[in-house]
């Protein structure tokens, strides 16, 4: 029948019948019958798919006939975005330009010196840099240079250069979004301590301050130094010296009298008797002597056990005060 044109998708093993209509309304028939009808109709559809499937050319395998399925017709969305193609590395660009072909290297290389086949990398390798006992001196060699150390440093430089190039290639790939999945580029955090602190970038203000500081060490305090183009005039953050006016009357508000009075009072205060707080002086002296006595007692009692010794009352010596200097002036 023309109606029963099922849409068959072999890649997904799907059959779709868009024309089927139920003989009776689904509400009228009970559940069991509905399910049975569904399954019966499903059987027809699956039979159609199986027809198409088994008619495909098959190869015999141990477990059964194996067929090659066509790709699915219904397109379903991807779960992850398409991977972006990697941009060529700097070496790849260069090799392409020059037409350099990549040659596969052998694991074993013939060593001329020993006359045997040695491996290219690893233990006892062919051109081992560290294994040279003697390095012959050339005419171009400088006298004081250690050739072994020189070789080592050269290798280290080559390795560092390669690492830098590798990082650059990865950065280029990361810019496009084509970083390989197992690589992450992480910003290195600056170490808190240690000798390898990153060089701090000096700001514009700091540079100006430093220049100013250096200038103040000159004889005239950096006032007459020739400034470079664009350099701002030196700042003076401190107070300026205050000089009294030359002509001024004497009276209450005269500044010169106030200034000299201030100085004289300060000087006199140091040598004046009235300043001595006798009571405080006495207390200080007593406290000092008490402390001294206590220490002496402590030293003598350290030989005998403290448990046996009767604890002396700390107040006992209060009556044995030395003659105080109260009221007496020196």
């Amino acid at each position, binding site marked *: 029948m023309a109606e029963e044109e099922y849409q068959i998708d072999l*890649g*997904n*093993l*799907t*059959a*779709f*019948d*868009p024309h*089927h*209509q*139920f003989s009776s309304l*689904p509400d009228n028939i009970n*559940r069991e019958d*509905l*399910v049975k009808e*569904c*399954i019966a*109709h*499903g059987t027809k*559809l*699956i039979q159609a798919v199986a027809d198409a*499937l*088994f*008619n495909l050319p*098959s190869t015999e*395998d141990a*477990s*059964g*006939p*194996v*067929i*090659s*399925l066509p790709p*699915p017709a219904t*397109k*379903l*969305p*991807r*779960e*992850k*975005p*398409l*991977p972006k193609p990697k941009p060529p590395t700097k070496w790849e660009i260069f090799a392409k330009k020059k037409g350099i072909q990549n040659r596969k290297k052998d694991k074993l290389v013939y060593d001329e010196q020993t006359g045997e086949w040695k491996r290219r990398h690893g233990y006892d390798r062919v051109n081992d840099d560290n294994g040279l006992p003697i390095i012959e001196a050339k005419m171009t060699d400088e006298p004081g240079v250690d050739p072994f150390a020189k070789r080592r440093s050269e290798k280290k430089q080559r390795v560092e250069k390669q690492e830098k190039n*590798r*990082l650059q290639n*990865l950065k280029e790939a990361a810019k496009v979004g084509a970083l390989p*999945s*197992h*690589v*992450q580029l*992480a*910003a*290195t955090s600056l170490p808190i301590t240690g000798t*390898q602190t*990153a*060089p701090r970038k*000096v700001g514009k203000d700091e540079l100006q301050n*430093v*220049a100013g500081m250096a200038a103040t060490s000159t004889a005239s305090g950096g006032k007459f130094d020739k400034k*470079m183009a664009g350099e701002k005039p030196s700042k003076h953050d401190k107070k300026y010296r205050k000089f009294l006016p030359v002509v001024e009357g004497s009276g209450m508000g005269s500044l010169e009298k106030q200034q000299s009075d201030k100085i004289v009072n300060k000087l006199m205060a140091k040598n004046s008797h009235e300043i001595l707080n006798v009571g405080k002086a006495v207390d200080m002296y007593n406290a000092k002597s008490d402390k001294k006595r206590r220490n002496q007692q402590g030293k003598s009692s350290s030989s005998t056990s403290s448990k046996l010794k009767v604890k002396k009352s700390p107040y006992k010596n209060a009556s044995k005060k030395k003659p105080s200097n109260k009221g007496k002036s020196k």
Partner: protein
Amino acid sequence: MLKSNTNKQSKPMLSIKTPKSLRAKRALEKRAPKLVELEKKTLILHGTKTSNTLNAVLTEIYHLKKDNSVKYSRRNDNIRPFEAGGETSLEFYSLKTDCSLFVFGSHSKKRPDNLVIGRTYDHHIYDLVEVGVENFKSLSSCSYDKKIAPLIGSKPFFAFIGEGFENVEELKHLKEVLLDLFRGQVVSNLNLAGLDRVYVCTAVGSNKVVFTHCALRLKKSGTVVPKVELVEVGPTMDLVVRRHRLPDESLKKEAMKVAPELIQRKVKNVSKDAIAGKIGKIYVPDQQVRSTPLPFTPKGVKRERREAKAKGDDKHSEKKQKKQKQDDEASA
């Protein structure tokens, strides 16, 4: 006045982090986006409240897709797929378990026995379908011959019946999602002995789909094609479509993109012959005898030059002689 320190080697501010073990590297490569994608994994979880039927539904879906799904057993209160902010947890789980399909079950008075089936693209919600489960019949309640029970991971047949799947937008969407959910791996070589399950979906009415899982029995018939018999085995349920959210147009376009390398372009001028093998025609264009560009040798100039030389007022040879004289003087 001040010079910056240029001699010191500055440390690179970026460092390359690679996994320290091969195992970690393999795990990362597994999760990386690929040109041809592998099976989609499913995450099964539930919300604040679930009913008995819903629990059974979720466990049965998990059993149907045992080897490529993850089932969470705790309840998740803060997941609301259809709300603006309620999907962050889902996206996070999708990222952590590398699952691009999820089945979220919840039960409430307004929406009893609710299942939200959703897909993610790049671990962000792509589309959602909300269905209610009715008339659920579980695996254990169907009695069948245990020998024909379908094995885990076998590729299923699908049968979609009903014009609703073509006309009603929600049912069309549900059809696509169900296909994606139960499809399994996309294979190019299939062993016909291993086909043993069928999913039958019938569109009844404008929003209801009867979903059945059956086992397949192939019986001998006279021809190469065996006779197909379906036995109801697994869960049977009525799915009532409640809400759905279609993907953004731009997102859909991006997700449906196929890598240009994979599109098979028709190779022209290749044909197969039983006797000669692979043959192609060489098309020789017509020779244009009149308009062929000839090599440019101005023959006419020679005679003029000869005559001029004979006369003696040849400018070109004069110049040449002068130059030769100068060269001789310079070298001497």
